[in-house]
């Protein structure tokens, strides 16, 4: 995959975009802190996974941090977010704590989903975060529905629906695009294009002309390409798409080029075979969103190597504490298995007392 920035043309500087111009130094440093915390969390998750502390899959976000952070930084009270299974960063970006996230990975009752969701299913409706979904593109109609709900209630907001480049060939996604344009739904589809749908490169998985987002034209939708290594660019372009949703109730597709340093998941045995080590190294050295943001802030005179190190250290400390929290937390019990199935039985309503809801024994 090539970077969206051509080497022959000087890239635009989005620092001067309206949505970025007003940022304070503290906000910019907060984004650095958040990206650093996400990377620390993901690195530690991998260590803990390898140490046998969790089951199932683990899809790491390392290399893509700017995307979730940039998007979450734009969210207001009526903006909502939903994504697929590579969801830890989005969860942390909307303000979920490392403790509840790590505990969820450990399958503990203190996890954000009480140990019932796991790595792919983090949720925080109180922070307008609706998951964490395991089926590729299965969340795309749900994101549409969040936008539908906003419009139905007359609220000025945007539904941000993330998907990977591997999701763009699913029928549910195309059905969602048609409905989004037809019903004028305030939804922004954000394709996090890391170049690979598991082990299959974009070229081997998708038919397209210039890029994946361009398919929007078939649905008469606006679209744009974003260089995901630049937090300013993400905020600038996504900010426009969100305004289009909020003010005009019109959908968009943004394709954000990004890169994951690790495999599709930790179960991706061929993660270092379908990509060359040189390719991975190139991204780490020249396109790492956190390094680039750090350099940018140093250049702007609002961050120093020392203060950045202090932030890194603080993030590592927070992660260690979350591991301790997760380790020491109780696991769910067998009695918890049939809670959280039905709202009516959980709330012990009159309706829940009529008829048999569960068929054990």
């Amino acid at each position: 995959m090539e970077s969206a920035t051509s080497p022959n043309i000087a890239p635009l500087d989005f620092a001067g975009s309206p949505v970025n111009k007003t940022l304070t130094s503290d906000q910019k440093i907060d984004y650095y802190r958040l990206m650093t915390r996400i990377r620390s969390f993901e690195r530690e998750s991998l260590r803990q996974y390898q140490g046998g502390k969790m089951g199932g899959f683990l899809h790491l976000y390392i290399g893509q941090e700017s995307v979730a952070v940039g998007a979450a930084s734009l969210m207001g009270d009526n903006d909502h977010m939903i994504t697929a299974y590579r969801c830890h960063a989005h969860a942390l970006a909307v303000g979920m704590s490392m403790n509840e996230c790590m505990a969820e990975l450990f399958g503990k009752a203190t996890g954000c989903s009480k140990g019932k969701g796991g790595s792919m299913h983090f949720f925080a409706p109180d922070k307008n975060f609706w998951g964490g979904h395991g089926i590729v593109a299965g969340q795309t109609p749900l994101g549409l529905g969040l936008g539908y709900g906003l419009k139905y209630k007359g609220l000025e907001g945007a539904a941000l629906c993330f998907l990977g480049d591997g999701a763009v060939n699913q029928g549910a996604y195309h059905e969602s695009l048609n409905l989004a344009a037809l019903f004028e739904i305030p939804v922004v589809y954000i394709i996090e294009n890391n170049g690979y749908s598991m082990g299959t490169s974009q070229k081997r998985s998708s038919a397209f002309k210039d890029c994946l987002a361009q398919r929007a034209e078939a649905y008469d939708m606006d679209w744009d390409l974003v260089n995901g290594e630049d937090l300013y660019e993400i905020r600038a372009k996504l900010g426009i798409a969100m305004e289009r949703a909020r003010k005009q109730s019109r959908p968009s597709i943004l394709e954000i080029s990004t890169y994951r340093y690790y495999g599709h998941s930790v179960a991706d045995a061929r993660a270092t075979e379908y990509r060359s080590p040189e390719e991975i190294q190139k991204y780490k050295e020249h396109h790492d969103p956190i390094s680039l943001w750090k350099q940018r802030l140093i250049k702007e005179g609002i961050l120093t190597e020392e203060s950045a190190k202090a932030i890194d250290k603080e993030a590592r400390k927070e992660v260690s504490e979350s591991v301790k929290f997760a380790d020491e937390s109780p696991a769910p019990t067998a009695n918890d298995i049939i809670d959280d199935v039905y709202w009516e039985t959980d709330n012990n309503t009159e309706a829940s007392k009529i008829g048999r809801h569960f068929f054990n024994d």
Partner: protein
Amino acid sequence: MREIEYRDALNEAFDEELARDENVVLMGEEVAQYNGAYKVTRGLWEKWGDKRVVDTPISEAGFIGMGIGASMLGIRPVMELMFWSFHSVAFDQLVNNAACVRYMAGGLINVPIVMRGPANGGTNVGATHSHTPEGLFAAFPGLKVCSPATPADAKGLMKTAIRDNDPVYVMENTLLYGNKGPVPDPAEGDFTIPLGKADIKREGSDISLIAHGRSVLHALEAAEKLQSEHNINAEVVDLRSIRPLDQDAIINSVVKTNRAVLVDESKPFCGVSAQIATLIQEHAFDHLDAPVKRVCTIDAPAIYSPHIEDEQLPNARRVVEQVLTIA
């Protein structure tokens, strides 16, 4: 009591719930301007307008999923599948999202949505349009399923389904839409029927015929024949709701009659009646004087031929024959 058609009973339920709760919205293919493929939503778009009654394109995965997403924000969509047979193109949404999202979120989300439409054979439309998936969906914890047989039950259950805070899948029947039956007048007050409550449609003492949906009518017809031609007094238990399930009504009836024939338009393999049979053997084994028997749809994809389809489905004659093997 006044008598109205099954479709109009449903229509009344929608009209009343649209009036009661501004978050209720009807959605589906041809439900608005066309007045419903089976005229179930007739007149509602004209009365309630574009916001409350919404035509969708033929795009089940898209619009069903959209409804689920909207319901997470507190909208109460009532989604029509023109045929429940079309569930297969929206299966991921119907199962992974509607049934599981609450659980995977540790109870932080609920999905107050209704999915509805006809689920039946008997109209010579071939295998793709004749599925009866009530047992299939009842097998997913997180979902509720009901299947009304009469106009009153259709209205009462639909209103309850719309008010329920979990996903409820209502299985109607194109062959029942035109049936007339007594339904209380709205002027007499709010009429609802709870989920999970069976109804004894005919009292009897010799054998229990346990059914849901249109099979209830076959069981009732069979019961009259058994009475008049064989002096067998059959009780007909209408489950109405598949999940939650009124197990007490089933067991009480079998304890009384000591014999049971289950009438079920599902296919026999792991259909609704398979579940009922296992409950009876678990909870009324000592009360049985004969094996539990079943009358299901004959185990093949739905045949088209108008000459023979009724023989593939449960019918009164097949029920009588099966009863006579054990009574």
